[in-house]
């Protein structure tokens, strides 16, 4: 086999911590090679070594058969290696072309020759079927198109080896399938791709081979056609993983959360939630399925008091909580795993222990007469860290230093520990690996089985289908249909999410 990239026996240390230990990855020409591993397994470290951001302590790197030393990202660029980052590095109020040429502006007598560049961008876009408008402003285009701009950026710089870092993390199902088409097109045009991911489905769909790493160790490389999701998961996590979360039939009881004719505006004054009705009963999980931006965030913010409702009524256990202060709502029995754990969920500069007391620090027994007993906070934190398997050196470690999965487990521990009657989980597994996802799903179901009401918001159809007892599909600010997971299909949900209300007669089970 002809390899365009060979990373042989790579070892990278940070002080005493070995992030990569004897990892070998060989990218064949014209293949999509998946790099699979849990959060914190060392995938990004390995790619940063390839990209010249880190220097390895041992091992060799060969590009097109020749041993090279990649001292910095510019060197990587020169070698034709391009990276499509997970978090897009785009200037919002620049056009597509301006973003693409940033850092290598073609100049003519000291002025930027933007027309020339735009022409080149347009041509590349057509060649690879990217369908990007070279003159559009970044802030006006969808997330999927922004990602294609990132791809164009690497192509513009002449990359023929592309690294995709978790490319589907923020895409809708439709955008994901478009991306997969694009990746295949790139291959047919002679490019080679490394795909970093922990989503097994994507790997099975697109990749030719998979290299698995676990806790910094290279576990091995397998051919996708000869493996199965179960085997990959086991290699990644090091034990058997249950995908389909097993759960018993739900036995819903009295209504806990009732939302009646709710209207909510966003910051710009646009109506986001429109005459929405929703009921979540004790002992059931209601999943809200929908494409990002259809009012999910505003709905959750209105329920939790972070945003005022313009009209309508929200009740919890029969008590009205519409537009009360967040603390009142929290105290009346609402737990909330927020959508953005860095923005809302954690004070990243606080120790993880302090974060675990974020809503209870002022209450007895953590506080008495306005004086905090930090020993009690530490104790509470240690219990939750233990019980929820939060991997952290100690309760005093800043939350910032924890991996995403462990941050999320800490938040879930904090929310569930308060034993709320209603638990709201907004994108609780975003960016997490299968091990963590399984854990979180089990916790949600556990709450349900304890007779609590759970409201789940997710963009992942798998998740909504697996975990919910009832699915409410949201589109353009209202619930356009409510279905049982057993009586629907991903295709039908996809249609509903896109706003095609399905008439009840056409509501066939598992319809193609």
């Amino acid at each position, binding site marked *: 086999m002809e390899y365009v990239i060979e990373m042989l026996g790579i070892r990278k240390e940070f002080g005493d911590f070995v992030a990569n230990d004897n990892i070998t990855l060989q990218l064949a020409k014209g293949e999509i090679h998946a790099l699979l591993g849990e959060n914190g397994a060392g*995938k990004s*470290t390995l790619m940063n070594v390839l990209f010249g951001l880190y220097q390895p302590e041992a091992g060799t790197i060969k590009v097109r058969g020749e041993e090279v030393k990649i001292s910095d990202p510019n060197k990587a660029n020169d070698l034709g290696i391009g990276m499509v980052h997970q978090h897009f590095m785009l200037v919002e109020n620049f056009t597509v072309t301006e973003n693409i040429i940033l850092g290598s502006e073609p100049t003519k007598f000291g002025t930027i020759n933007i027309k020339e560049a735009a022409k080149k961008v347009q041509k590349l876009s057509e060649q690879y079927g990217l369908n990007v408008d070279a003159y559009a402003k970044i802030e006006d285009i969808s997330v999927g198109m922004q990602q294609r701009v990132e791809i164009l950026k690497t192509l513009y710089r002449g990359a023929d080896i592309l690294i995709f870092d978790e490319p589907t993390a923020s895409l809708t199902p439709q955008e994901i399938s478009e991306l997969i088409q694009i990746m295949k097109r790139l291959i047919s045009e002679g490019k080679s791709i490394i795909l970093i991911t922990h989503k097994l489905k994507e790997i099975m769909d697109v990749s030719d081979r998979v290299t698995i790493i676990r806790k910094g160790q290279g576990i091995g490389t397998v051919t996708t056609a000869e493996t199965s999701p179960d085997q990959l998961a086991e290699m990644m996590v090091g034990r058997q993983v249950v995908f389909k979360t097993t759960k018993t039939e739900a036995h819903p009881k009295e209504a806990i959360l009732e939302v009646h004719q709710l209207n909510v505006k966003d910051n710009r004054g646009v109506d986001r939630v429109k005459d929405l009705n929703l009921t979540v009963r004790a002992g059931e999980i209601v999943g809200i399925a929908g494409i990002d931006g259809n009012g999910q965030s505003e709905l959750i913010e209105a329920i939790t008091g972070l945003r005022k409702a313009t009209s309508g009524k929200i009740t919890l256990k029969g008590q009205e909580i519409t537009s009360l*202060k967040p603390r009142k709502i929290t105290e009346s029995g609402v737990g909330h795993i927020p959508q953005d754990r860095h923005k809302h969920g954690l004070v990243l500069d606080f120790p993880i222990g302090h974060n675990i007391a974020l809503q209870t620090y002022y209450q007895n027994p953590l506080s008495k007469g306005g*004086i905090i007993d930090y020993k009690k906070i530490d104790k509470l934190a240690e219990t939750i860290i233990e019980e929820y398997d939060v991997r952290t050196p100690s309760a005093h470690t800043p939350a910032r230093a924890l991996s995403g999965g462990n941050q999320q487990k800490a938040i879930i521990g904090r929310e569930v520990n308060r034993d709320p009657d209603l638990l709201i989980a907004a994108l609780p597994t975003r960016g997490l690996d299968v091990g963590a996802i399984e854990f979180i799903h089990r916790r949600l179901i556990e709450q349900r089985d304890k007779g609590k009401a759970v409201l789940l918001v997710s963009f992942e159809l798998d998740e909504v289908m697996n975990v919910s007892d009832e699915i409410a599909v949201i589109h353009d600010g209202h619930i356009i249909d409510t279905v049982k997971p057993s009586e629907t299909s991903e295709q039908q949900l996809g249609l509903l999410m896109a706003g095609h209300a399905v008439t009840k007669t056409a509501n066939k089970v598992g319809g193609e």
Partner: protein
Amino acid sequence: MSNRLINILVPVISVILGLIVGAIVMLVSGFSPVDGYAALWNGIFGDSYNIGETIRTITPYVFSGLAVAFAFRTGMFNIGVEGQLIMGWLAAAYVGQAFELPTGIHAVVAILAAAVAGGLWAFIPGILKAKLQVHEVIVTIMMNYIALHTANAAISAISGGKEKTDKIHDSASLSSEWLASLTQFSRLHWGFVIAILAVIIMWFILEKTALGYELKSVGFNKNASEYAGMNVSRNIVLAMVISGMFAGVGGAMEALGTFGNMMKLNAATGIGFDGIAVALLGANQPFGVLLGAILFGALKNGGLNMPNAAGIPTEIVSIVIALIIFFVASGYLIRLFLERASKKKGVQKVKGDK
């Protein structure tokens, strides 16, 4: 090289480097650095009078440093310590001379008045920030000018057109004959005890109380604080007010201790602005601020001796002192250099994947 060793070496090397560069400046300008530094040393520790004056000089810096540091720790930039200090000074001077109260109680009331005045002066930028998102830096800077001229006008009004207020009554004074006699009749007063108390109070608020937890949380992440049910606006205002109260009490030190009155000011006192440097020198930690204020106050007071004892002009003195402080503040660079030198290349990056 162990961390502890580096922690000790950094400030030592910083001060030495500052002294060396200061010496070069003196040499180039034709003065003897040996004489200069001897004069500086004597100005700080030379005799009990100088020691007394040094401690007195340090005292208001402790308050202005605490005020800035408290705001920093709670996510605010209080550039208005100067103005809050002036208002505190005015309030204390007024209460000290206008009322008749029992000894001790009078001083306490005057200090409280200063705290309220400083707090109110900081309340305005606080509420503007909380309710209208007006940036506190611009408001506090402007409030400094307003304070300066308001105070001057108030002094005229209180004193019937004179350049300074009447002396405060003895019952409000922080001066002590005992302290004075101990230090060859320096102006040392009891304020330094209050300064140490203030250090402890700031530490206590930030590290022990639920209020401090909230203030810090809001300072770090307003969204998460709101999510957790804290009243973000109230905490922003409170952070500014408490910061302003420290500044106000700093002003009371001048009114009740050093001067015993308030005179019209041509320009800002500088104590408030230097408080920014003091806070940063002390890494915004209460006890660090104390150390920063000691360095600042000692150099300021010692520097006063350099023109007389070594014939060095005050301009050169200011440069030398600024250089020393500059090098202490750039301790980060020295730390970086030491860490590089000690070959411990282990960049303490967070491991692997995010």
